[in-house]
């Protein structure tokens, strides 16, 4: 293919958009609407998952040791636990640390009466998990380790968070799937109408001796450009709305925003930007390419 042909087909693709303004507008509006909904859902779900993840990170399993355990064995157990795939980090709390925390939180000046550490057997590891749903597997393992006398965990919290996470995953997949299917259907329909309008032109091109590439390319470029514009519009809108909404929540619901940790727009856009552009371009490409194929054999 010659350079001039490439630029000609590119230019024809751009011109096609303006030649059929109404259809182009309908296509852009359809993609924009679907990707706007997609973006809104994605932003909400990403924040929800972030909040759940933050909560998960606070859930830990605590292990206590046998009375006669040595410092070396405690250290060995620490190494063994760190190597487990479920574990993100562990924190060693010595008997002294435990007593100091207890004193500060509950006893204050009344602790002076204690000459010995009443929590002498309370040295422990606080184990934080990568994924809270893996808690059971880790607990089963920890209970089998010699030297560990007790494993404490928060089963209800872990179960609730794990289930919430799964539910969010399924709901987001379902919603995104439906939106994408609707988008593809609508785009395919719009492109079909656009191609029907220009069926005569395609037929002339084929009679004159246009190659399949030459016939397809402007329509495919048109589809890609429509997809690109259709995804850029909602991305711009969501960027603006998200920042406004975040500021609104922070101003109006101070309690909520102090409890929940929301994602910044840049964090959301790290994933949303490429995915949205990819979907827009992909839908435009697939919709136009498959539709043009149907009209090639004259």
């Amino acid at each position: 293919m010659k350079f001039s042909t490439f630029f000609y087909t590119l230019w024809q693709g751009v011109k096609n958009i303006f030649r059929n303004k109404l259809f182009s507008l309908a296509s852009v509006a359809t993609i924009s609407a679907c990707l706007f909904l997609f973006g809104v859902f994605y932003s909400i779900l990403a924040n929800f998952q972030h909040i759940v993840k933050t909560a998960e990170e606070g859930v830990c399993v605590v292990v206590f040791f046998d009375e006669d355990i040595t410092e070396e064995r405690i250290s060995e157990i620490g190494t063994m636990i760190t190597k487990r795939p479920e574990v993100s980090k562990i924190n060693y709390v010595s008997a002294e640390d435990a007593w100091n925390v207890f004193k500060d939180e509950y006893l204050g000046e009344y602790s002076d009466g204690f000459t010995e550490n009443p929590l002498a057997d309370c040295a422990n590891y606080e184990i934080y998990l990568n994924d809270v749903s893996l808690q059971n597997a880790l607990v089963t393992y920890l209970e089998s380790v010699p030297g560990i006398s007790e494993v404490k965990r928060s089963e209800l919290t872990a179960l609730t968070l794990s289930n919430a996470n799964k539910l969010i995953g399924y709901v987001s997949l379902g919603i995104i799937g439906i939106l994408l299917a609707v988008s593809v259907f609508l785009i395919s329909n719009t492109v079909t109408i656009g191609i029907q309008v220009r069926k005569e032109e395609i037929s002339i091109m084929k009679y004159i001796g246009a190659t399949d590439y030459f016939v397809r390319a402007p329509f495919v470029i048109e589809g890609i450009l429509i997809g690109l514009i259709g995804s850029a519009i909602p991305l711009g809108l969501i960027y603006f709305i998200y920042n406004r909404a975040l500021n609104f929540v922070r101003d109006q619901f101070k309690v909520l925003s102090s409890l929940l940790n929301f994602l910044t727009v840049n964090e959301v856009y790290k994933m949303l930007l490429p995915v949205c552009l990819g979907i827009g371009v992909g839908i435009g490409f697939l919709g136009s390419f498959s539709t043009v194929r149907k009209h090639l054999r004259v």
Partner: protein
Amino acid sequence: MAFNRPKKKLMEDDEVIVLNNVSKSYQAGVQALSNINIHIKKGEFVFVVGDSGSGKSTFIKLLLRELVPTTGSIYILDYNLNKIKHRKVPKFRRNIGVVFQDFRLLKDRNVYENVAFAQRIIEVPSAQIKKNVPKVLATVGLAGKYKVKPGRLSGGEQQRVAIARALVNKPSIILADEPTGNLDPKNSMEIMKLLEEINEKGTTVIMVTHNKEIVNAMQKRVITLNKGVIISDVEKGGYNDEI
């Protein structure tokens, strides 16, 4: 038959179109053409005449490789249309300039762009297009109207644009399907004059028509189709009144 398949420059006696025992039937069982044998030499002007249902449309579609014959073989220039691969069909079609009854111009583009469109399709460089299009527009007498959109032209002028578009890629064959069908007698005769001039410069012209006056006036070779069969093939003939 020893088919003459030119490799380079076509000579006057070279056969540019050969149909050997060509039949075409459609799935519904309709026999559109039966046992057609036609040999057309370079530079000939041939009328193909016949009533509705005579097989004229099928004949055109076969020549353009829009259809393939059910039996028999078709050779055009150095292409065997029975064996040509799909991806080679565009290149083959560049040897044939097609003119339609309904002009089939792009209404959203002006005269220049309509003609240049044909050159773009075969990837002619832009600089060359700028030279070729005005030349061919001058040939058809439309040099002064290159900026006008087809909707503002008369039927005769639109057909001239269509002829310019068919000519600009310098095809060996012009295939005109009822080119005067939508024109008044005066414009019809002007178009015929133009086609004759093109033919005199060496381009083979195949014209499908049922315009009795034109066929009789031109006194060219006339192939008459009736119900899918050739009933006459006359050199310098008139319209066959049997149909």
